[in-house]
């Protein structure tokens, strides 16, 4: 498939070592078992039924090879799929829209974050959830900056990552997050991975 070849080429140009390619889920699992890569990039639609084989394969990789991270590429702006992915294994996992990876910098950054143990959720999905209409919306009570921070938290970024992105100190980010969680009525979790799921779940209900 053109896209797989395209991605391989982009990655190789960016200096990423591509250790294997597969047509389907079974081949992918065998490859992962053999080559033990840092991250496996999985298309959500794979043979034979082209429905959710990719999600199933991703979950199997996370269960059977916990040292390998998984990045799922999808055409669907479906928060449900992304959440299904991180519900069981909130670490070293990502869900990105396919067109996002045109920017090789974004793709490589996502791979790095996954290797570092972060979660990666596509910004389009996060912005759809943030834009969702709620009754007595507590999100409305956030300042613009706080909303920005909340979005980055939902995208799975670490405090350090958010600080770097916004050109502020990590302390400032921590203060923002504390205020956000207080306004939303969420319990602040020391576990950065769990907090992504907590924020997404909050935004969805």
């Amino acid at each position, binding site marked *: 498939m053109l896209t797989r070849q*395209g991605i391989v080429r*982009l990655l190789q140009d960016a200096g990423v070592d591509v250790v294997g390619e597969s047509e389907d889920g079974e081949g992918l699992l065998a490859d992962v078992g053999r080559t033990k890569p840092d991250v496996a990039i999985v298309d959500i639609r794979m043979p034979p039924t*082209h429905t959710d084989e990719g999600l199933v394969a991703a979950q199997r990789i996370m269960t059977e090879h916990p040292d390998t991270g998984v990045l799922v590429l999808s*055409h*669907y702006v479906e928060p449900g799929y992304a959440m299904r992915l991180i519900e069981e294994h909130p670490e070293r996992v990502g869900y990105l829209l396919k067109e996002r990876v*045109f920017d090789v910098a974004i793709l490589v950054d996502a791979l790095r974050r996954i290797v570092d143990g972060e979660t990666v959720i596509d910004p389009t999905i996060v912005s759809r959830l943030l834009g969702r209409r709620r009754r007595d919306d507590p999100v409305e009570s956030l300042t613009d900056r706080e909303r920005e921070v909340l979005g980055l938290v939902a995208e799975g970024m670490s405090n350090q990552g958010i600080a770097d992105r916004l050109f502020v100190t990590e302390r400032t980010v921590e203060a923002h997050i504390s205020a956000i969680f207080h306004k939303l009525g969420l319990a602040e979790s020391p576990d950065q991975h769990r907090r992504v799921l907590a924020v997404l779940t909050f935004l969805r209900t």
Partner: protein
Amino acid sequence: MATESVRRANVLWIAAGAAGLACALASLAVALGPGEFTTFAARTPALATLVGLGLFGAGVASAFGSPGRRTGGLFLIAGAIWFAPVWVGWSDGPPVIRALGALAVPFLVPVVVHLVSTYPGGRARTAATRAILGLLYATAALSAAAHALFRDPLRDTNCWDNCTTNPLLVHPSPALVQAMDVMDRWVAAGAGIVLVALCVRRLRTATGPGRRAVWPVAAGGVVVGSMFVAHSVALANGPERPVEPVFRWIYVALAVGMIIVSAAPVLAWVRTRTQQRAVGRIVAELGEAPDVGSVQAALSRVVGDPALTIAYWVPSSSRFVDAQGQAVAEPRERPGGSVTALARDGRTLAVISHAAPTDDVVRELGAAVRLALENERLQAEALSRAEDIRASRARIVETGDAERRRLERDLHDGAQQGVLALSYRLRLAWAAAKADGDDRGAALLADATDQAIGVLAELRGLAHGIFPAILTEAGLGPALATLVDSAPIVVEANVALDDRLPAPVETAAYVVVSEAVDDAASRGATHAEVAAELAGDRLLIRIDDDGAPRGPAMPRSADRVGALGGVVRPEPGMLRVEIPCE
């Protein structure tokens, strides 16, 4: 039905009954008249006449009632033969009459076995019954012929019943006649045992309405069969001249058995009239707009057969349907049961399946019941047509959905992948241009990439609008969650569904909620609540909103839900939807 031939047949049967009556009266007159009588039949004229009249009456009642003409004929023949001993025992009577009586007497056993074993149909259904009856008739004919041709009463030292000259005698042969007597005894004993066994089995196996129709015949048959055996045994072991009291009791018991047998068609006739009145009364109580299926329920209750069913014939689609309009198989006769076709002007209206042999109440329904039945048939036809249309709608909707799913997949696997691949190539070209220091080219390529990404987003929206893939892949709950994510107003979804539902139901539910939310937004609502739950085998959806009063019903939802046999009920500030999940 051809009423002319029916009338002629009726006249014939009434004539036959009258002839029987004349025969009975003549026998009574002879028996009451002066002279000596040797047989018990002639010595107890009142009993003999009662039994004979009973058999003739049963014959006429059968011919006009449910047992039918064949059984009626057998009753008449049995009645005629019943009087034969009177003529045989008429000491002062003309020898020809006595000889004719003697010819008839041996046939009592086969005719009674025939009558009882085949009641109410009059037709032997199994090969075994046919063989037994054939044997009985053959031996009776043989015995009658042998006695007529070879019995010389004057040379018969044991003669007791008919000892005047035998006018039919060809050649006297006492040895042959004696052998025939022995054969007669064995055959009668055997026939009696078979008859008792048959009747006991019928009493044990028949249930419900079948048992009610058969028990008098079977019970009488047990008595009659036992007396056949008893008579044979008494003849074999008894005194030389069988005028002893034991024969009198056997004769009386036999007479009682025959009366019980004769009561069956009369009881059936009485029961039929009672039931007809009961059905008529129930149907009258149903009024002008009875519930669907009430005629079947009324008939079933009155006849006492819970398995009774009515299948209505729908000529337009050449098939049978039940009262609800659902197609049913053509009713076929089951063992022990019956099917009765009801016709008008030669056209079948309905077929009634019944667990018992044909019941008159079923065959001869009163005018009121027929009218109700005809109404119900029309209603069933209308319902079946509506069901056909619904099924056709469901097929159209399903075909449309399949087509949309295919389109969505084609877009995803074709156009979306293609534009995606194009974007990669543009990106690569951009990188190459940048490496070559071609800033203008790089800027153009960056523009083109952005445009391609815009096209991708549009394609994604288009594909989702055509058919949301998540609905097929993850089900109604996740699909509704996505719908809520991107709804133009605040929507709270409360979906309590654990299992996947049939695809057409999920799609219909999705379309309903989607259309209802859009509709609410267009009426200025700011908030809507969606609740979906499964109640039994029905999916219940309720959508409340705070918008302006609802306009005309939403056509897309009504079409889809209607196609599945569900309903969309708009109420003030609320929409209720019920979809059956079969």
